[in-house]
């Protein structure tokens, strides 16, 4: 095994000069980026692209519209789920206010992932047995129909991963034109969180005879609710 300075100085010698002490000059980047003019347009393109990937989506303005939307999507299913599993709906510790009040009006109790069990493995089992994982999103990307989620002690990465369905709430103003803008925001964080997940549609594979198949590992159904104040 090599130590760092030997390893690095070997590379410097291969490059025929000492290792620079200053950061190398940045590469000029002048690719024309995808741009939209306003939030309304961003939301609409984001929604089109999200749906084209197989996700379901809705735009809401109030807790009541959220409730109607949840009812339309899930109907009486949660009642059946709860009969088998009281922890069928698994969520972040805090969701946007609109979401919290819609779930409580529907009387669909949410299990908070981070507090669901002491041992991580038990939490994973709870997540794997849940029917719907509910999260917020920090950003969205119009061009690719993507939601972007940061990790945090009050959140949990498995919620958007292990249950067969994932529902995410996002503020309309958080939807960006393109990946570059989102990465600029990430860079502005200074030190990024342990994980940033960019999710574009359900889990998919074409590994068997190039035949597209959904849900080989991650969620099979993905939903997004855009909150437009």
């Amino acid at each position, binding site marked *: *095994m*090599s130590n760092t300075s030997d390893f*690095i*100085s*070997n*590379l410097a*010698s291969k*490059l*025929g000069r000492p*290792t*620079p002490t200053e950061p*190398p000059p*940045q*590469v*000029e*980047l*002048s*690719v*024309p980026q995808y741009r939209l003019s306003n939030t309304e347009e961003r939301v609409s393109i984001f929604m089109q692209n999200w749906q084209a990937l197989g996700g379901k989506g809705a735009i809401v303005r109030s807790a009541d519209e959220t409730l109607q939307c949840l009812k339309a999507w899930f109907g009486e299913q949660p009642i059946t789920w709860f009969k088998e599993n009281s922890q069928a709906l698994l969520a972040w510790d805090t969701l946007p206010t609109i979401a919290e009040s819609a779930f409580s009006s529907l009387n669909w109790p949410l299990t908070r992932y981070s507090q669901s069990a002491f041992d*991580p*493995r038990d*939490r*994973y*089992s709870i997540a*794997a047995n849940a029917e719907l994982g509910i999260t917020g999103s920090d950003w969205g990307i119009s061009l*690719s129909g*993507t939601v972007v989620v940061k*990790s*945090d*002690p009050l959140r*949990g*990465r*498995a919620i958007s*991963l292990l249950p067969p369905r994932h529902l995410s709430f996002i503020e309309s103003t958080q939807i960006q034109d393109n*990946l570059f803008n989102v*990465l600029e925001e*990430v*860079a502005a964080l200074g*030190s*990024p*969180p*342990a*994980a940033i*997940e*960019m999710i*574009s549609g359900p*889990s*998919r*594979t*074409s*590994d*068997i*005879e*190039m*035949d597209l*198949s959904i*849900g*080989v*590992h*991650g969620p099979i159904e993905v939903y997004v609710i855009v909150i437009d104040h």
Partner: protein
Amino acid sequence: MTMYNQTTDERVDKALANSFLRQATRRATDRLRNNKYKAADELGNWEEWRAAGEAIRKNVISNLDYYLNQLIEQMEKRGVHVHLAKTPADAVTVVRNIVREHNAKNVLKSKSMISEEIHLNHALEEDGVEVVETDLGEYIIQIASEPPSHIIVPAMHKTRQQVADLFEPIAGHALSSDTPTLTRFVRTQMREKFLRGDIGITGCNFAVASTGSIVMVTNEGNGRMVSTLPRVQITLMGMERIVPSFRELDILLNLLARSATGQRLSSYTTILTPPKNTADPDGPEEYHLVILDHNRSEILGDKLFRSSLNCIRCGACFNVCPVYRQLGGHAYGSVYSGPIGSVITPLLEKDWKKWGHLPYFSSLCGACSEACPVRIPLHDLLVKLRMRKTQSGHTPQVERQIFKAYRYFFTREKTLRRALRLGARLQWPFVRNQRITGGPPPLSNWTNSRTLPMVAPKPFMQLWADLKNKR
């Protein structure tokens, strides 16, 4: 892995005789290539993106020492264990030791070409560890004990029936070969394994030097599982897989997703800045980064081939290569196949005897260079590799004899004239439709599958002389 023991000719014959493989490879590469065209066209200015991609990669490679050092510093600052492996054997030892230290029995892997390069699974299995490939394609070839046949779609060569046959002994009952049944089976099968994995091993698409972050791209979500659930995570990366900062990452992620599968972004793009925050409810507590050299530093020092380190492993060059499209990946015999595999394998492995055939797995049509999102001049590198091989004295005896004879005749004008006259007379038994179609060895090596132009009744030298006389 039987195919490693076969000769090149045996592997090629086998591929040519397998009509499913050839048809499937063509169908899949057509699809991937056409998807890529669409995704590239959509950007409207693909050439500018390619130029930017090339500039970023060149900058990284020509400052690799600086960026790698920065990455290591950032990682170590947060308590990541960084291991620098000179050779594949070193990398295997590192991983083996970590697995032993934790007394781990279940290791989950998401796709990593480095793990194929260092033949990791075999070593871990020898230690009695269960290694599970969690990418569907990798899982299929793991059960079949075969190397990947494509860098993006590793089980491209398998029929659905073959997949069902491979899964059946594990399922313990008959399985129908439709895709939903097969994927459902894998989902159930893997779930249980994900939940009890001790250590997760992942690859790395890009490592962001400025923050010490690892970027991983998958469509299935297995990469997320492997980097979220086990308590300990190991990431394997080739030392060139760096991007300076998030600023440049945008370009490379766009080029990668669009060139590999024609997506705007893969289903899951994960940026890990490990280890987890102590209060996070999931994610690895302990994180190891293994950085592999394996003669990449030699390539770095070799100006002729340095640009091969710019590769972002998108597979676009495979999908347009007429040789790859006829033969699939296994005929190459190497872990990395396709045009980029033909370039880097001889350089990484430094074994002309074993890998000297690879630079010739190309028609030099240049389609690969045109497809490459970071503009690596692949066909040019293949020609230079042929030169290297010749200079190193590893060309076959027959080839050397032929070139000796060539030099002999072409440096003696009179002898050449005589030989041409003789050739023009002797060729007749072998000529059909104005082409030479047969002959004694070594000529027959060529004429068995192709024809040659006839020796002209009046050679060029004579024509030239006649012309001069006329003036």
